[in-house]
């Protein structure tokens, strides 16, 4: 397998779990370390299921499945805590990302690691939601005035809040991309077409889930953790009507991103050849070695710069990077 990175082996194992049959001990060690580093070990464990694996691997995968079950339980409990805190705010609460996939029983949620609780509420309800969460024991993570003001002015979410007893973060969004980004998704439509779960919480419609995941992966960040997000997309794409998705993506101005997400999922997990810019994305998404280390620093840097470029107009970007650079503690080390 000359030139195949361990992350490429991981992507192949997720797409075609039976491909792991060919692995020797060293191959397994690299695969498992890459999966851990990409937060995909639980997902891999579910994908491999009851396929035959060496005993040492079976024990590690069983641990990963148990850990994912526990994470899922904790995430759903946290969502319930948020629901209770926000009940009196009288606004819809839409779960996003991992918590949503788990709560809605989607295949993307199987074995998935879940970190923060991400929710979407109407922009008009933000002050009430913030006040209710603060009253119920959540606290600011970033007491820094510049960061706080930056979030409030330029971001699509409140500064992150953490619960003082449970140590869990909640990210309260009012839309799915920063207002400074070049496209503006229709936040009202996201909320209007939500799917109620029957427990006071909701999730996005199947098409909007794909649109959000594609926006998050391709129009926002620097692709850190991107392999997991792309795996989400591969799963979500199997649970949506293609025509409905095309219409929805166009409405949010994210048709290009959704199309690229579909191509990348096929290229990365199913071995469909990638060309042009897609090949560059693939290179970035698979930049991980068998020790769990980040590789291809220049490709990473390129996507990091790009993420800021996408997020902000040039003058704002320059100001932001200048302020961040001046405060970077590692600069003085």
């Amino acid at each position, binding site marked *: 397998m000359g030139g195949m990175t361990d992350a490429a082996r991981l992507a192949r194992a997720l797409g075609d779990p039976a491909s792991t049959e060919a692995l020797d*001990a060293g191959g*397994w060690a690299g695969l498992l*370390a890459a999966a851990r*580093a990409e937060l995909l070990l639980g997902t891999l464990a579910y994908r491999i299921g009851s396929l035959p694996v*060496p005993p*040492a691997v079976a024990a590690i995968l069983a641990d990963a499945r148990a850990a994912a079950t526990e994470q899922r339980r*904790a995430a759903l409990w946290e969502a319930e805590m948020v629901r209770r805190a926000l009940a009196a705010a009288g606004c819809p609460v839409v779960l996003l990302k991992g918590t949503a996939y788990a709560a809605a029983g989607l295949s993307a949620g199987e074995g998935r690691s879940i970190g923060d609780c991400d929710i979407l509420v109407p922009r008009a309800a933000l002050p009430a939601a913030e006040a209710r969460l603060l009253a119920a024991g959540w606290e600011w993570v970033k007491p820094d005035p510049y960061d706080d003001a930056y979030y409030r002015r330029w971001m699509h979410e409140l500064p992150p809040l953490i619960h003082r007893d449970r140590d869990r973060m909640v990210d309260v969004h009012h839309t799915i991309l920063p207002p400074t980004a070049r496209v503006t998704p229709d936040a009202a439509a996201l909320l209007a077409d939500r799917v109620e779960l029957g427990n006071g919480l909701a999730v996005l419609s199947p098409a909007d889930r794909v649109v959000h995941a594609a926006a998050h992966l391709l129009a926002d960040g620097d692709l850190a953790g991107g392999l997991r997000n792309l795996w989400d997309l591969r799963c979500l794409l199997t649970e949506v009507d293609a025509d409905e998705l095309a219409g929805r993506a166009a409405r949010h101005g994210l048709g290009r991103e959704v199309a690229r997400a579909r191509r990348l999922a096929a290229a990365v997990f199913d071995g469909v050849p990638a060309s042009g810019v897609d090949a560059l994305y693939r290179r970035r998404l698979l930049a991980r070695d068998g*020790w*769990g280390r980040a590789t291809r620093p220049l490709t990473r840097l390129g996507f990091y710069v790009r993420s800021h470029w996408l997020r902000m107009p040039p003058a704002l970007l320059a100001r932001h990077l200048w302020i961040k650079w001046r405060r970077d503690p590692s600069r003085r080390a």
Partner: protein
Amino acid sequence: MRRAVNVRVGPVTFRIGSDWAAPVAAVADLYRDYPPAAPVPDLTVRLEAPRQWRRWLRPQVAVTGDFGLPGMVPLPLAHGLLAAEMGMNLQMALGHRRHLLLHAASVERDGAALVMTGESGAGKSTLSALLAARGWRFMGDEFALLAPDTGLVHAFPRPVSLKNESIAAVQWDGARAGPVLTNTPKGTIRHLAPDAAALAASDRPARAALLLFPRFGQPPSVRPVPPGEAFARLTQASTNYVALGEAGFRALVRLVRAVPAVAVDYPDTESGIAAVEALWAG
């Protein structure tokens, strides 16, 4: 990574990779009498230069792996073995899920385990080393591994890390020991591998028979600890209790219901040992 070695401690196999040869050689030497490692490691430790040039110029070792902590200060390359030991602890504390981890020392006699937990300085390491010298089987002085399904305690017999004055108290001739590490953040350190009997028996779990909360340097006192208090104290002594969720809760409840717990204050090690052996004799 340039060099790598797999070592197994009790039920856990670590893969330790390093940008330099020296730390891996030191690990391989200190662990040379341990039972053979599993072919696929449970956890990976990486010892790497925090910046490229730190590989060669006043080389520094950053400790990371499957799991890392931001803000960990790198060590000089001369302390590479300490870095590897810290790396294994870090991976266990943040990543191990197969057992409930108790920050505790444990020793075994006739298939029954004595588990001692307490803050550092409570004397659990010293007590376990001295009990081992008196015929007990040393199971570990860092973590005791409680299996959620069986309720048994598994050994995790890492090398003992001796500090400062205690180094002089050991007979080093023929001992499987690491190099003397001077000027570490904890002073002078030397690692001592457990004896052959402890390593040979390291795959044999034991039923917990007594839970001890020792405190060194206190006027002598022995007080039974009710199960509720023992439970609360052990949740504090566990690094993965929260992450294990219900399985951790059940394992701990079962332990404190089945096993008597005693808080022992002792002024010096001699009276500590006497108190422990008296309690054990019942």
